[in-house]
């Protein structure tokens, strides 16, 4: 086994340059601190993304993106295709788990201040990836063409239509017309399987390159303790020590996905009918709930702006501020924490949880 491994490395070395692969594997280390658990979240999100790609390709073999066929083709996958139920349920559950781990990854990076110099671009590429992941969720939700998805997309695209200046154009661009129709379905399908994967691959490559290039960030508290001589910084080789631990997490994720798919298969609902009345209590997927609820609470007018418009503007500004945090959090330096931005992070988490819970009531 060891000989085969050595032979493989030699074969790769001959083609990629002397020892480059081994160098790559040797040099990557992970700081061993009490915060190490958070370091697994990026790999977990990547693992779930790979699951999405694989199950998505399998679904493509049977899925047909037209209003007449979409629902029936998913129904066919769920009932007639061998293990189709498993693939579709894993795809849906994994999508939600991926968004959840992406949320956790983002906040762990935020609170451990891993975005600080020189990792600003790692943070920005990660944030853009996060928005793309949300785009995957939004576009993929419509594809089964069921009632809930149809009306949730209607509400979601209406929200996009409130964006100042480009709202009307954006609404037509997203829907492929004034209403949610078959044109919207084909458009969302295109976004979901071509545009977003292309962008995601590019950004993922940049993100991983930066992680590799800059190495893993050491939390400021640990950095300070090491500088003050209170402790020494321990590192763990990424390969194989950290990777093997990563794999334990991935196996566990596979088990969870399998369990969810077998015990709680992702339901299909009823086929979308554009002429039917919207079902009561229509709301978007859980990861958009806090924004949805925010817009619901806003009054009809705020100063000289329409309430919804002001809400969209506010959310947009908040998103830009969040992306620019590495440049705004200037006081942070070697081993120093800025309490204001940590407080902001706690507020954002609290806001998301409370507003989402209120929307689910």
């Amino acid at each position, binding site marked *: 086994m060891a000989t085969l491994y050595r032979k493989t490395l030699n074969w790769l070395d001959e083609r990629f340059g002397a020892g480059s692969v081994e160098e790559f594997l040797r040099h990557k280390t992970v700081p061993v601190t009490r915060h190490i658990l958070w370091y697994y979240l990026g790999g977990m999100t990547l693992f779930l993304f790979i699951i999405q790609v694989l199950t998505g390709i399998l679904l493509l073999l049977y899925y047909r993106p037209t209003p007449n066929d979409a629902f029936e083709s998913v129904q066919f996958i769920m009932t007639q295709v061998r293990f189709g139920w498993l693939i579709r349920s894993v795809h849906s559950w994994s999508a939600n788990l991926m968004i959840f781990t992406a949320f956790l990854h983002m906040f762990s990076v935020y609170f451990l201040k891993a975005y600080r110099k020189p990792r600003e671009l790692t943070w920005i590429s990660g944030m853009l990836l996060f928005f793309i992941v949300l785009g995957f969720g939004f576009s993929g939700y419509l594809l089964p063409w069921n009632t809930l998805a149809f009306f949730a997309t209607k509400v979601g695209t209406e929200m996009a239509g409130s964006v100042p200046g480009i709202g009307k154009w954006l609404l037509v661009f997203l829907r492929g017309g004034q209403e949610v129709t078959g044109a919207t379905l084909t458009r969302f399908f295109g976004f979901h399987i071509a545009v977003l994967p292309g962008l995601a691959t590019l950004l993922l490559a940049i993100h991983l390159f930066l992680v590799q290039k800059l190495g893993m960030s050491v939390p400021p508290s640990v950095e300070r303790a090491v500088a003050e001589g209170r402790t*020494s910084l321990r590192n*763990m080789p990424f390969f194989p*020590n950290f990777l093997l631990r990563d794999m334990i997490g991935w*196996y*566990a994720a*596979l088990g969870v996905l399998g*369990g969810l798919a*077998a015990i709680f298969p992702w339901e*299909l609902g009823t086929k979308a009918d554009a002429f039917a009345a919207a079902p009561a209590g229509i709301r978007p997927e859980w990861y958009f709930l806090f924004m949805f609820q925010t817009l619901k609470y806003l009054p009809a007018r705020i100063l000289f702006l329409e309430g919804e418009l002001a809400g969209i503007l506010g959310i947009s500004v908040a998103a830009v501020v969040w992306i620019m945090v590495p440049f705004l959090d200037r006081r942070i330096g070697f081993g120093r924490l800025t309490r204001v931005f940590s407080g902001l992070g706690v507020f954002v988490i609290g806001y998301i949880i409370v507003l989402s819970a209120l929307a689910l009531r």
Partner: protein
Amino acid sequence: MTKSIIFVALLFLSLRAAVAAPPKDTCITCHAALGGDLAKPASQFEVDVHHQAGLSCADCHGGDPSDDSMNAMSHAKGFRGAPKKNQIPEFCARCHSDAAYMHRFNPQMRVDQLSEYLTSVHGKRLKQGDTKVAACVDCHGVHNILAVSDTRAPVYPTNVASTCARCHADPAYMKGFDIPTNQFALYEKSVHAQTLAGGDTSAPTCSTCHGNHGATPPGVSSVANVCGTCHVMNEQLFEKSPHQAAFAKMGLPGCVQCHSNHEIVRPTDAWVGTGPQSVCTTCHTPGDKGYGAAQAMLADLTHLDSSLTRAAEVLNVAERAGMEVSGPKVELAGAHEDLVKARVDVHTFDAAAVGKLTDSGVEIAAKSYQAGVAALRERDYRRKGLGLALIAIVLAIGGLYLKIRQMESGDSIGHRGDVERKAREV
């Protein structure tokens, strides 16, 4: 100059006031000031549909509303006063039977109320001098008449029955008319009243079967026609059935013979057959052809109903387990339609016709049941597969854990947990 400006301004204001002021209506002004019963018409008229349409007291009662004196109510000025009870239909009909006039307000407004009313029991008796019977104002109100579409109107569909009941459910008032006074109490128990109370304003109320302005009890021979207005299929099947001629011969009133008239409750399958709730056994006795047909129809209906219940139960269990069974559920809905059709076909009183429909439904229900059983089998298969997969995953995780321990605790790597040293070596 200043005086000229003030003069022009005052002139302008006085002209403006003259244009904006509402037309003078001394009827309202005086009656409102009189108090008591005489003030009621003035206070009630505010909400009246006629007032909303721009009509005034004088449009019905005549007179001159611009005159401040008592001369406003002089016959010389066309004052007609309040009509007597027997004059009311014609009083209202002056406008309501005038198509050209009524079309100014509503082009779709009917103008046959008076002619209909005169065919009604109310109208006929009024003409004979019986002033206890209902005329226009008894149902619609006098000075507070609301549009029929107004939910507060006494003639709005959900209010009609209680409006009729004001007289028809009052034994003291109805004394001498020789008709029952329990219709309202019976109607309230009916499926029609329940549907209406549930918000379906197309559900029948008194006027749906008896007519509104031409209210009259349907005769024995026309009962099927009345019910058939809505229950078309049932009426057609009954008309073609052997019961039609038999009922006519016996002088039985069609539908109401089995379903009653005011207390029309939701029928059950037990009404057919020969059990204690059967209506067939009112006439049919053991040994006759109808008795056997009743037994056969009940058996078929019961078989289909229980097949549907069994299939629905298994499909619901599968659905709750997250299995995709929408296809079989749609098919089962088709079988349920067969049951509905079979229940309607009972009015053919032909056991073979009913059996044909129930057989088709039973076949579909059996397929749906099998689909549900297969879905539950698939659920179990998935759970077993999950169990095996989890065992494999746990073993893999255990293997990885042992590998890490071996790597990080063996002599070749260094003592357990000291990954930092290894990292430095690397």
